[in-house]
């Protein structure tokens, strides 16, 4: 029998990521729980505000990917207005969205995961960090910064500032792109493309060293969800929702994102503030209206983000990204999806390449400097849903307003939330491989940390002062006794 541990969320301090590993009576890992601590209340905070303010407000949910919230929020606002935004505005929004993918993925790959990947998972912990990377591969460290700065610079050019640009608004964008600024973006592209090509080569050269990690880091079947274009291409801004299982069976070929509630449910547990989104048709199958049993939602687990997006699309649509995608798909048997979360790293780099190629193509579009960039209207619908792909996965903003556009209710599903179940299962899988006896060790802590980092989760970025994500791992016996505890300060 396994003792169930309930941890009172009120005692948690925001910014801590706590992991509890539960042992059964035989001392084997029976479960692992990744407790995410976020202050609830953001959605409540927004009630009573005007929907016009929401892009600016929601951009502050995250310090790394504010643009994602700008996009989803502005799209929800578009729906409330009942407008189609000018084509140039849509292209400009996409430009900013792609730039954000580049900067966020660059940070994740080069600086957060780079030390593990390039220095080795079992290398000296004292050197497996940014300084070890600088010592051994200074050019790689500089390249990562250059690539991130490319993305930030494009965002700043378009929006006037790289953090929380108040440029994306319901109806379109505030300012067009000038010829001069288009030239600036154009000039920066070759270096960014070169850096990405080098990073892909470096990762592919190192992949054979990580066969063990492929096996144990999130290697399980699941559904995958994301946006695709109407004809199945890789998509980050618009399109339709597609859900596919690990065997390549398409469960939802293309549902309108505004209808997401028909297929996505949200479960809650007392031991974490993060909700558990799940695919309803699978999780509720066979219940016929009966009360669902505990843990029912796990049957509807899906992954989002780079791995999901490159898995579910039929093609990318740009030459180098498509070539990389074909090579990537050889990691799985023909027709099946790449189901190892370890390959989020690879997927991230493919997406950077795709986004850079799309940016290059878009800045050559003659209409990109048109000055008609905003549609104007009043409230025409009392519910607006905006969906966009954030670097970490699909992001939903749903707003309910009154006739004056004042928010009555807000619901958001953030990208990291979708991956909650998968992150928990990944931690459990790693723990099952590495826990031996009743002690935790540094190596275990590193592995778990890396397993979580695969998903590049956005945790407590919203509060800088106390959001440093120290990590605490507790090993708990079947009778509830805490056998060991490891802590790493963030």
């Amino acid at each position: 029998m396994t003792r169930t541990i309930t941890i009172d969320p009120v005692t948690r301090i925001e910014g801590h990521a706590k992991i509890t590993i539960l042992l059964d009576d035989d001392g084997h890992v029976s479960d692992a729980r990744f407790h995410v601590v976020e202050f609830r209340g953001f959605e409540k905070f927004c009630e009573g505000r005007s929907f016009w303010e929401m892009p600016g407000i929601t951009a502050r949910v995250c310090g790394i990917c504010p643009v994602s919230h700008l996009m989803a929020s502005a799209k929800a606002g578009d729906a409330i207005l009942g407008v189609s935004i000018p084509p140039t505005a849509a292209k400009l929004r996409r430009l900013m969205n792609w730039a954000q993918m580049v900067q966020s993925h660059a940070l994740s790959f080069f600086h957060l995961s780079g030390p593990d990947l390039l220095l080795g998972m079992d290398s000296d912990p004292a050197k497996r960090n940014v300084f070890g990377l600088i010592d051994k591969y200074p050019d790689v460290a500089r390249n990562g910064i250059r690539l991130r700065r490319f993305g930030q610079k494009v965002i700043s050019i378009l929006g006037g500032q790289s953090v929380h640009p108040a440029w994306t608004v319901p109806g379109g964008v505030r300012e067009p792109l000038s010829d001069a600024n288009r030239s600036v973006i154009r000039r920066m592209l070759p270096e960014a493309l070169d850096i990405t090509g080098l990073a892909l080569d470096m990762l592919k050269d190192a992949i054979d060293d990580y066969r063990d990690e492929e096996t144990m880091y999130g290697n399980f079947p699941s559904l995958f969800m994301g946006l695709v274009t109407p004809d199945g291409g890789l998509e980050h801004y618009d399109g339709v929702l597609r859900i596919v299982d690990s065997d390549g069976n398409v469960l939802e070929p293309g549902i309108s994102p505004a209808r997401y509630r028909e297929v996505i449910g949200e479960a809650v547990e007392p031991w974490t503030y993060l909700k558990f989104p799940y695919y309803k048709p699978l999780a509720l199958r066979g219940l016929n209206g009966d009360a669902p049993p505990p843990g029912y939602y796990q049957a509807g687990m899906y992954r989002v983000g780079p791995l999901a997006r490159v898995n579910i699309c039929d093609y990318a649509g740009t030459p180098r990204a498509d070539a990389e995608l074909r090579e990537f798909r050889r990691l799985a048997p023909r027709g099946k999806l790449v189901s190892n979360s370890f390959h989020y790293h690879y997927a991230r780099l493919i997406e950077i390449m795709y986004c850079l190629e799309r940016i290059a193509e878009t800045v050559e579009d003659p209409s990109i400097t048109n000055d008609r960039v905003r549609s104007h209207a009043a409230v025409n619908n009392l519910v607006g849903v905006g969906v966009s792909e954030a670097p970490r996965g699909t992001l939903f903003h749903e707003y309910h307003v009154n006739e004056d556009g004042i928010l009555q209710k807000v619901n958001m599903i953030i990208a990291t939330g979708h991956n909650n179940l998968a992150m928990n299962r990944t931690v459990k899988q790693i723990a099952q491989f590495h826990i031996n006896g009743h002690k935790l060790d540094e190596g275990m802590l590193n592995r778990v940390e890396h397993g979580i980092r695969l998903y590049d989760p956005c945790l407590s970025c919203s509060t800088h002062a106390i959001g440093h994500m120290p990590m605490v791992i507790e090993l708990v016996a079947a009778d509830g006794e805490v056998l060991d505890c490891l802590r790493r300060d963030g």
Partner: protein
Amino acid sequence: MTEPSLLIYGIGNQQRNDDGAGAFVAGVVAAALKRRGITSEVHLVQQLTPDLAEEIAESHVDGIVFADVEVDAIAGAIRSIVGIEAPVTSSHSWSPALILLVAERLYGCRLPAWLVTVPGSNFAHGETISPATHQALGSVEAWADVIARVLLESRGAAPGPSLA
């Protein structure tokens, strides 16, 4: 001779009450330094990220100030953070000292740098700053004197009069 110049980073989320104090402090410090003949460029950031190391290296300024809020601090403080130890983090958010160390190790850039902090206690959603946090801003003129003395002396000029 041109005026000395600084880059000031105001750190924090202005929608999380005291977490946004860094932005406020940055503006107040910039104004105090201006009165002492020092120009500043203020950048507001929700958190510090690695790319800021290159930004600092390319900035051609005479010094860097980071303005932030600190949990459990009692009063405001200023400290020099050049060359201090910086624990390496695996999170998205870096410390000022870590940014400076990377600027030095990767770009050979070493500048005078300070961290000014005010206490914070309320991090719920909101746009207000606690009275205790406000009170700590009483030290801003003293902070500006410290910074100005170092910068102006390094240029061989005497610090200007304080207007406190």
